[in-house]
């Protein structure tokens, strides 16, 4: 593999990792606060649809982004209502959200646009254009560094940079601020937070609001950054992969980055090298397709060791039975 190809693969990795990363960090905030979220997929899907739909209607990608975030926030709100307010089962609520998003997006799309559950293709200001970073053109000629900067680092949409900046930001929030301390505490021992005079419900809603915000960004990136419009089920299981990445990352921001990059890389490689020929024996494309999933299982089975989730995760905080 030559250098240019390598850069291409890595470039593709960055693009594919971005929605995973945003969703993974979203899950991180939620699960660190003790709310397990398998509804990431649905939130992303809802966000993808509404961002594309509003961008298509208004012609403004920024309004679209806001709409996407709002949609994901509404989904988060439902999740919160079910799992925080009414102390329901978080997994079931997540499953319901995935169903809901998958149905409602197409239903509304059909009602609004009559294009078979699709939004119209976004033009011009309806999409996030890629940004050329300063000096990218100028440096392009410099060997090694130039192409690296031009191809890999420059030339992504703004949401990609936002996603990557979210990693240190998440770390900082979690480990350097009062809010982060409380958030982590509420995922470990909500009763400690409660008796310390801090509202468990408030913290958890804040966490899932952040989760909604980030899945909103992820969905909007899919529909208006990576693509130019929404099609049904366009998240294609990314929410689940993000969840796997979160476990792989042991609920830590930097590890989340690495995990998402790894999954992105796997997808990029699978896309680029289908039917790998190993001296006569051809690895079928299905194997390459299934590889990220197989790898997830392998990783869960062995390499992460015991990933210890936040202790209060998945359980509603019940004081009185």
């Amino acid at each position, binding site marked *: 593999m030559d250098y240019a190809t390598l850069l291409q693969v890595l470039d593709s990795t960055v693009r594919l990792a971005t929605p995973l990363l945003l969703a993974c960090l979203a899950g991180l905030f939620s699960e660190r606060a003790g709310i397990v979220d398998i509804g990431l997929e649905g939130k992303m899907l809802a966000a993808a649809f509404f961002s594309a739909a509003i961008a298509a209607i208004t012609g403004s990608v920024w309004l679209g982004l806001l709409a996407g975030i709002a949609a994901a926030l509404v989904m988060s709100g439902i999740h919160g209502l079910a799992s925080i307010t009414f102390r329901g089962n978080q997994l079931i609520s997540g499953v319901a959200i995935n169903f809901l998003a998958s149905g409602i997006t197409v239903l509304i799309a059909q009602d609004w646009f009559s294009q078979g559950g699709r939004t119209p293709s976004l033009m011009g200001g309806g999409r996030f254009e890629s940004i050329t970073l300063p000096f990218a053109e100028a440096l392009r000629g410099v060997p090694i560094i130039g192409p690296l900067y031009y191809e890999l680092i420059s030339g992504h949409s703004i949401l990609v940079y936002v996603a990557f900046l979210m990693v240190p930001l998440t770390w900082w929030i979690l*480990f*350097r*601020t*009062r*809010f*982060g*301390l*409380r958030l*982590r*505490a509420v995922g*470990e*021992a909500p*009763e*400690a*937070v*409660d*008796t*310390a*005079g*801090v*509202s468990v419900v408030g913290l958890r809603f804040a966490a899932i609001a952040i989760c909604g915000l980030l899945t909103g960004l992820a969905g909007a990136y899919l529909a208006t950054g990576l693509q130019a419009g929404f099609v049904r089920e366009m998240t294609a299981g990314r929410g689940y992969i993000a969840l796997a990445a979160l476990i792989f990352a042991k609920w830590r921001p930097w590890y989340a980055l690495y995990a998402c990059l790894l999954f992105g890389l796997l997808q990029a490689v699978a896309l680029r090298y289908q039917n790998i020929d190993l001296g006569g024996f051809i690895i079928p494309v299905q194997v390459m397709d299934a590889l990220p999933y197989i790898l997830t299982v392998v990783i869960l089975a062995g390499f992460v060791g015991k990933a210890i989730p936040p*202790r209060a995760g998945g359980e509603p905080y019940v*004081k*009185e*039975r």
Partner: protein
Amino acid sequence: MNDTPAIELKGISKAFGPVQANKDISIRVMPGTIHGIIGENGAGKSTLMSILYGFYKADAGEIWVNGSHKDITDSQAAISAGIGMVFQHFKLVQNFTVLENIILGAEDGPMLRPSLARARGVLKQLAEEYELSVDPDELVENLSVGHQQRVEILKALYRQADILILDEPTGVLTPAEADHLFRILDHLRAEGKTVILITHKLREIMEITDTVSVMRRGEMTATVKTAETSPEQLAELMVGRKVLLRVDKTPAQPGEVLLDVQNLRHVDDAGVERLKGVSLQLRAGEVLGIAGVAGNGQSELLEVLGGYADASGAVTMKGVSLPLSGAGADGSARRKAGIGHVPEDRQEEGLIMPYTAWENTVFGYHRDPHYQSGMLMNNARIKEEAQDKMTRYDVRPPNPNLAARNFSGGNQQKIVLAREIERDPDVLLIGQPTRGVDIGAIEFIHQEIIRLRDKGKAILLVSVELDEIFSLSDRIAVMFDGQIMGERMPGETDQTELGLLMAGVTERPEGKLIDAVDASLKEKEAREARQHD
């Protein structure tokens, strides 16, 4: 003396679903006193205090603090009213450091750094003033229970509590640690602070409190000056009848060795060695009591002998060696070998809470062909026998169709005892037989244990209650840090000696007891921390 009460509760009521935990309770606690609260399990003590601390919301009633009506809707309100509470089950974040736990909810600003820095300073001061030293940077999960309790007290003091509530603080302490705690409470009282102390131990009430309130079935039955009462009177107020505080028994007639344990070692999931070469022998017709502070390997000893934790070493039952890991090392194999087991935690281990009582009466023995008919379970027979057992063990209500969770703690314990004792095992392992059991039921359980002993069975008794160990055991072994520190005969030792052994101190120290205990515990913590890495 100031006669505005520090705390006055008026007409507090609280129901949990169908359970009326507190019924129209009124109480006054005077400032600068230590006020004891006693009562059977489930009497509603913790509930009342949790209401005062804003953890639960009362259905009715008022809270007055220092003469003014306070609307305590959450813990924040309680904290700002100057109330601090150390719960029965600590409310700490296990994988946070001590410092982080201290500042949680009481941070100075949105950034952590300055809060942590200030807390470090304050903590140092408090540590000196009250002899409450803990390493501020240690993770709470690496601390002994005693030290975790210190963190809880420090948390309250850091929030400048004037009124400190302690819910059964001594259950998890060595006697020396408990003494130390009482000195701290004394000190607090001397400073004019108010302390509310919940405990089951009448001795402690008599020793330190100024006033004592008694609760029964959700109601406040009496409040008396400690100086004007006696343990016997308190016990009667608690249960509503005269109680025998001692166990009647004849001297043991030890027979052959039934259970022989040699050099037992066990490493837990986290990789910490919990049993470090335990050896003991158990004879027919005797009760061997294992004393020790919770967390020193007694639980693991029971789990290993009960067959559900792997270990190395050698265990023989009537000369037949038992496998300690792999196939054959499970609860049902042990039961077949004649070892019955009343586990320490009836709710987490001994019973399936949603199962009916009759289903629970065969739990662990459900594979016995006696309870099968063909491919199916013989439920009719199981129910029939359950009814019989429940009547004979005076389980109330004697209704086998009720779910286990609907019985009170004492009655749950009776169901477990009935199940295990009725199998007539040669060896019975019993952990904390009377934890959370009211005085009346304790009497019954103790009698049953002695009756079994007198039938020539061997009993291994693990309890954190020294009183219980003393009154039941024919021999006492003390465990500390996964080892047996020594064996004593009950008549030839006293609480102080056992207390020191429980802290790992084998020789009576020159200076202060608590320092020796502290040093010993520190050493243990350091060892464990090293093992974690």
